[in-house]
């Protein structure tokens, strides 16, 4: 077996006429946290479903944990934990009932012990007989995660796990993910949040089915080769209006009282920004390009 937990190439999936995943290749090393990014409807969920054996690809091949994604889907399901985007445990079962259902499906033993330990780890012992449907968003997410890792998977796939969860719960969730990865678990997590992407070891950016960028966060930022200026003071509203469409300017985004101006052509950008800064009496300064700037750029290019 190689040191890759996921190694797929040329994955393509069509639903009718629509190609949802187009020729996606992805390598995820063992023990790393891979961020999986892309705009809404870009095929992230479908790609994840292809890799955990829920869908069969129209073309392409690959191995997940050493198992063929076409022929060994059963084996993959046993070793992978998949947390769906929507809470997909039974809202009309209690926490304990949900967990013992999962334990039963995976044939874990001693079942009661495993369930009791999982509930204790979650810190939900006092509420174990509460219906899952009555839990708050943050708790539902923690329950779902606990249920997904109960069978000690080697690979965890999380599909937008923190949607609708407050910042504190999100941070705790990520601490947990890092702890798991430290213990040897490989994690593939799709997200829209830049701060979450930055917590990943590596990221892959997929757009409308195509894989566009892959690497560590600095690699991806560097690879985009963007120049960013921050414009402060003066009439920023006027500056924004003047900068949009100016030579070398690809993005103009207001951040509070400041403007982020991003472009690929450093020389042309500098000229435009300096001119506008002079006209509007504001001050322009070279700045670091953020991951978000890169993604907006990538989305615009796609």
């Amino acid at each position: 077996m190689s040191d890759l937990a996921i190694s797929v190439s040329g994955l393509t999936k069509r639903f009718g006429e629509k190609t949802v995943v187009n020729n996606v290749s992805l390598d995820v090393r063992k023990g790393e946290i891979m961020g999986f990014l892309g705009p809404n409807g870009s095929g992230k969920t479908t790609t994840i479903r292809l890799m955990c054996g829920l869908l069969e690809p129209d073309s392409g091949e690959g191995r997940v944990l050493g198992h063929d994604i076409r022929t060994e889907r059963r084996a993959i399901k046993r070793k992978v934990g998949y947390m769906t985007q929507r809470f997909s445990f039974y809202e009309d079962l209690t926490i304990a009932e949900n967990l013992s259902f999962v334990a039963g499906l995976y044939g874990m033993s001693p079942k009661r012990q495993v369930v009791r330990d999982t509930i204790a780890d979650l810190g939900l012992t006092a509420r174990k007989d509460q219906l899952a449907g009555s839990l708050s968003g943050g708790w539902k997410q923690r329950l779902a995660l606990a249920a997904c890792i109960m069978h000690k998977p080697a690979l965890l796939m999380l599909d937008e796990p923190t949607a609708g969860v407050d910042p504190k719960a999100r941070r705790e969730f990520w601490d947990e993910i890092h702890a798991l990865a430290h213990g040897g678990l490989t994690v593939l997590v799709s997200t829209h949040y830049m701060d979450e992407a930055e917590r990943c070891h590596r990221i892959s950016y997929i757009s409308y089915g195509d894989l566009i960028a892959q690497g560590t966060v600095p690699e991806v930022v560097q690879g985009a080769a963007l120049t960013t200026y921050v414009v402060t003071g003066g009439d920023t509203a006027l500056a924004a209006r003047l900068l949009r469409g100016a030579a070398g300017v690809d993005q103009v985004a207001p951040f509070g009282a400041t403007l982020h101006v991003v472009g690929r052509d450093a020389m042309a950008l500098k000229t435009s920004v300096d001119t506008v800064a002079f006209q509007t009496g504001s001050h322009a300064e070279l700045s670091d390009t953020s991951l978000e700037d890169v993604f907006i750029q990538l989305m615009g290019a796609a």
Partner: protein
Amino acid sequence: MNRFFSLHRLVALLIKEMIQMRRDRVTFAMMLGVPLMQLMLFGFAINTDPKALPAALVSPTQDRYTRAMVTALELTGYYRFIAPNATEGEAEDLISRGEVAFVVTVPSDFGRRIERGDHASILIEADATDPSVASGAISTLSTVANSALLREAGQGQASSNGLEIIVHRRYNPEGITQYNIVPGLLGVILQLTMVMMTAMALTREVERGTMENLLSMPANPLEIMLGKVVPYLIVGAVQVVVVLVSAKLVFNVPFVGSLSLVLAGVFVLVLALVILGYLLSTVSRTQMQAMQLTFFFFLPSLLLSGFMFPYRGMPDWAQVIGEIFPLTHFLRLIRAVMLKGADFSAVAGPFFALVLFAFGLAVLALFRFRKTLD
């Protein structure tokens, strides 16, 4: 602009509602399909005064009087002699299987007695498990038979002693409707609850998004199907006990046949129905659609199976459609066994039809399931 009622708000609501209605294809089809189906079924298929009922004739001496009788009976439109020269045993067999609704027995000395002007009699046995089937046919009997004989024998001869027509309402001599309805009701209740419950149970998983999770865990289609089906088999078993016990204790429906044969039939029926429900759930996306599909299936089967209206009274095309419902076959089986005491060989036809349904539906369901993974 009126604050309490505005036309443009109403129009906006109407447009939105109509768009939604059009998008939901299944509901839209139901809205057009159900009235059309009801119209066809009630208008053309259902007949509460059934005509051309199959009959057997037992007449050792096929003389001219017998022929006159038979012709007269057929002319009423109620009788159709499909076995015009049956032996007593054959006739008994036919009526017990439900293949004929009447057995007309003309004794061998019938003609001689008529000619001598003696007292003569014929026996008409009617399958009264469904009292409404026999009533019309029986009520026309005596006048028709008498006038036919008078014509045949010439005036004056037969009139002196007349003709006695003995009518035996077999299996249900008092013509109690419950005898027919209650055993059939078992099938109807099972059909509604089993199909609907199973269809909804699986659709619920899809609708709530739990299906995706379930499939990502190591459970295969067969396990999921059995996991869904078995609980409802148990519910079905409870319903069977309730209906059979109340048939006996509350409605005093006779139970002359073998209980184990009835239970075997019930088991196969429930199996077929539950799998059908499962099949419906693989084609519907929401619980609402599953319920609509259930009713789309339930309604014609109720009308065409012979539960509400006599099967024999329907035109041929409707009888053919009736054959595609498991309920039709179950009704034949349970009525024959409970009321007529039919043995396995007599109900083998409907029994194996049910087995075929269960098997065919199971194959279809497993096939469909594989598709829904994608």
